């Protein structure tokens, strides 16, 4: 098997005295789409935010393409906390789409998308604009290039946020409940966009979702979180139709009942 693109090694996370992740080992292969499911508070978001470096890791290591994300080796080969340059270098492989979009309200849609390529990656503005427009086309919003975020619906905002993340060409793209802040009638358009990216993209995906049907359709693998651990991890058919643990059975049952 190829070298994994992301590798969690005994990752532990505490918020003060509260343990949220408990020595998790986990891998994502290049191009692999992994869905995370599990009850509220089980640690899915925290797990993903550690990869985006939005939370501090408490213990363990995360590797991206064989490089430590949170650590660097010193002269003697011991791990020490990574410098911010090192963090930025490794982090540049990761992108994230948030539940609440977080578009830049002071910029037009197109500016939102090309801001980071130009400012962060130092790309040529013309090239970035072209790439940005291609992305907008891909998410079906080319006609909104000059609109401001306040003029868009929630579904459109999330599609812009997806285009903004994609234009950075991340190798791993994280989605944290990308549709749960949307009105029900807007969920479909966003899922459709994510699915089309999944179908054509070489990027790996880490997708936190409560949309089981969608997870089944898009994911190569589903990992079930409970109590800060990954309790089961396997192909969608196994996880959804042949759960082994009581906890997953319970979760799926409760989930079906609320549908």
């Amino acid at each position: 098997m190829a070298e994994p693109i992301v590798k969690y090694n005994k990752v532990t996370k505490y918020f003060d005295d509260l343990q949220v992740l408990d020595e998790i080992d986990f891998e994502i292969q290049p191009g692999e789409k992994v869905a995370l499911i599990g009850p509220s508070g089980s640690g899915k978001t925290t797990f993903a935010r550690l990869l985006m470096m939005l939370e501090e890791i408490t213990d363990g290591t995360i590797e991206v393409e064989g490089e430590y994300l949170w650590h660097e080796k010193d002269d003697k080969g011991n791990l020490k906390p990574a410098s911010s340059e090192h963090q930025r270098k490794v982090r540049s492989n990761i992108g994230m789409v948030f539940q609440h979009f977080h578009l830049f309200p002071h910029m037009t849609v197109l500016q939102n998308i090309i801001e980071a390529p130009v400012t962060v990656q130092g790309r040529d503005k013309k090239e970035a604009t072209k790439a940005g427009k291609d992305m907008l086309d891909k998410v079906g919003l080319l006609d909104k290039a000059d609109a401001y975020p306040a003029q868009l619906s929630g579904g459109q905002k999330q599609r812009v946020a997806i285009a903004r993340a994609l234009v950075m060409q991340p190798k791993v793209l994280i989605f944290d409940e990308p549709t749960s802040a949307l009105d029900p009638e807007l969920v479909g358009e966003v899922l459709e966009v994510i699915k089309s990216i999944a179908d054509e993209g070489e990027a790996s995906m880490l997708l936190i979702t409560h949309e089981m049907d969608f997870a089944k359709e898009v994911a190569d693998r589903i990992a079930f979180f409970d109590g800060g651990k990954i309790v089961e991890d396997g192909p969608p058919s196994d996880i959804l139709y042949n759960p082994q643990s009581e906890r997953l059975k319970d979760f799926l049952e409760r989930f079906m009942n609320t549908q």
Partner: protein
Amino acid sequence: MVWDWSYAFDILPEIASALSVTISATVVGFILALVLGLIWTLLIRSTNKIVHHVANGIVRFIRNTPLLVQLYFIFYVFPSIGIALDPFTAGVIGLGVHYSTYLSEVFRSGIESVGPGQWEVATALNFTKRKTWTRIILPQAIPPVIPVIGNYFITMFKETPLLSAITLVEILQTAQNIGASTFRYTEPLTIVGVLFLVLSYPASLLIRRLELKIAERY
């Protein structure tokens, strides 16, 4: 007491010409206040506890002591430690430093109005700290507080007569000098009041309009 129009017109040019001192002290002082105010805000936000507490302490101290006392200090006490400043420089520094502490508070509220999501997405898009500030946070934090900043500008303008206390010949001092030599104070002091009114009232209207414009956009 009768108002003497011809006397008033005689002295008007002299008083009005001193306006340039008043206005340049306001403008230079305010620029200093803006820059320093932003620096205070950033220092107070520092994750370094010592930097945070020291900056916070200084700002509180300055904000809670009278401007006049600070002006006296800068002008009359600094020379004893080898820093002798002319009245204009001392005045501008006094105004600038004093108002920087108010503006720092204004910047703080503007910055805090930008939600944590903007910081997170900046991290996710791999912005440096610096670019996060200049491209994402400040462009959102500043526009909503521009009216408040404008009001401080007008307030500071109206406080410049304090600088006469450290011998700066601005417009109040000029009027007083005229009054002292002619023994007529009504006209010169009235002119001073009217000049302040004529300048600050339209300015406040302008700010009001700006405020509406900004409210429209956000």
